[in-house]
């Protein structure tokens, strides 16, 4: 074995040791703040269709009791809002706090250093980091950047780094959300059900935080999420049926 080979093998071994070390650190971190008995079993495929809850609309899940208090800026945006502008008609995915309430299924995978939410609607994947990492300048996006921790048999998630979205509050009320939007989620088990309280704050549009609580039921055994594969042509097709607000 010559010196070059020894050096190469040594480097590979060192790299492998580093990788294993990192994985162990990652594996230790989430349990540092919660004992295994405090980590709820949230994994699986969860049914958020009409079996579990009323379908979303102008008044669901934001009804009389929890509709957000909009500031003047939000009201002004709402007044000039044009449905044709809505990016969903060009397949832009839904964002928090709406995507959690879309009436489809979602898959939750709990790993030592992260929890992954995969939504059937819009083929969206959200990663909730449990390892204490911080967002970088590259982490802005429609789903933002999420960190979380287990506490009191619940998963607590905090998300920021959202990009501005003209319909970033919900699909129905023409309320935008800004780059300062923050969403807090709390997930817990209630018997067979998965429940969550979703709270949104946005100092550029909302006078105070607003929240809703919802639930999912376990999907039937063997269910697999289907691909959404949004079709741009049919996505915009309804807009032809609407009188144009602006010429």
């Amino acid at each position, binding site marked *: 074995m010559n010196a070059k080979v020894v050096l190469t093998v040594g480097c590979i071994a060192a790299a492998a040791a580093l990788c294993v070390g990192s994985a162990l650190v990652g594996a230790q971190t989430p349990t540092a703040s919660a004992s295994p008995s405090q980590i709820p079993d949230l994994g699986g495929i969860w049914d958020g269709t*009409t079996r579990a*809850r009323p*379908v979303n609309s102008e008044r669901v899940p934001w009804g009389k009791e929890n509709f957000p208090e909009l500031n003047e800026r939000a009201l002004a945006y709402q007044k000039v809002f044009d*449905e044709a502008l*809505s990016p969903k008609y060009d397949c832009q995915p839904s964002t928090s706090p709406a995507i959690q309430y879309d009436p489809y299924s979602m898959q939750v995978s709990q790993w030592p250093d992260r929890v992954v939410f995969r939504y059937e609607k819009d083929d969206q994947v959200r990663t909730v980091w449990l390892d204490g990492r911080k967002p970088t300048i590259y982490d802005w996006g429609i789903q933002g950047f999420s960190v979380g921790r287990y506490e009191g048999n619940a998963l607590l998630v905090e998300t920021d780094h959202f990009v501005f979205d003209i319909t970033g509050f919900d699909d129905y009320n023409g309320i935008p959300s800004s780059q300062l939007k923050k969403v807090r989620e709390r997930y817990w088990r209630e018997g067979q059900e998965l429940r969550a309280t979703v709270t949104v704050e946005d100092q550029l549009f909302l006078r105070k935080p607003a929240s809703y609580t919802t639930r999912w039921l376990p999907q039937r055994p063997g269910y697999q999420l289907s691909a959404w594969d949004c*079709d741009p042509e*049919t996505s915009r*097709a309804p807009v032809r*049926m609407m*009188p144009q607000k602006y010429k």
Partner: protein
Amino acid sequence: MTSCRWTALGLAAALIATVPVIAHHSSAPFYDATKKIEAQGPVTKLLLRNPHSFLYFESEVNGKKVEWQVELGPAASLTRTGWTSDTLKPGTIVRVSGQPSRAEGSFGMCCARITRPDGSPITPGGRVTEEQQPPGGGLSR
């Protein structure tokens, strides 16, 4: 008793053929929920897609042939309840009643009830709709 049963069956048939538009947008800016229209003609195409599926069929309006665009639910929901792209093949005559579109000169409908011309369901067993919402629903806040 028999007449009650037939009334119930008739109501069920009407329900199972009704295809709601859900989850993606409000129908109000596009369709007038205070009006109802009905048209009949051959299917030209059925697009089972997300976020909306569409049924297209032709009929005559004021002596002129027009193509109707009927907005249906997303493929993700319709396929769960038995729809396939062969459910309504081109040439199949359908009777469609629903809310008319609002844009001037447009021929669209939503929230439609789709049957064969004699009013019978379009698939054997008629299982072509979204699941009904449970009474009282779930938690909303």
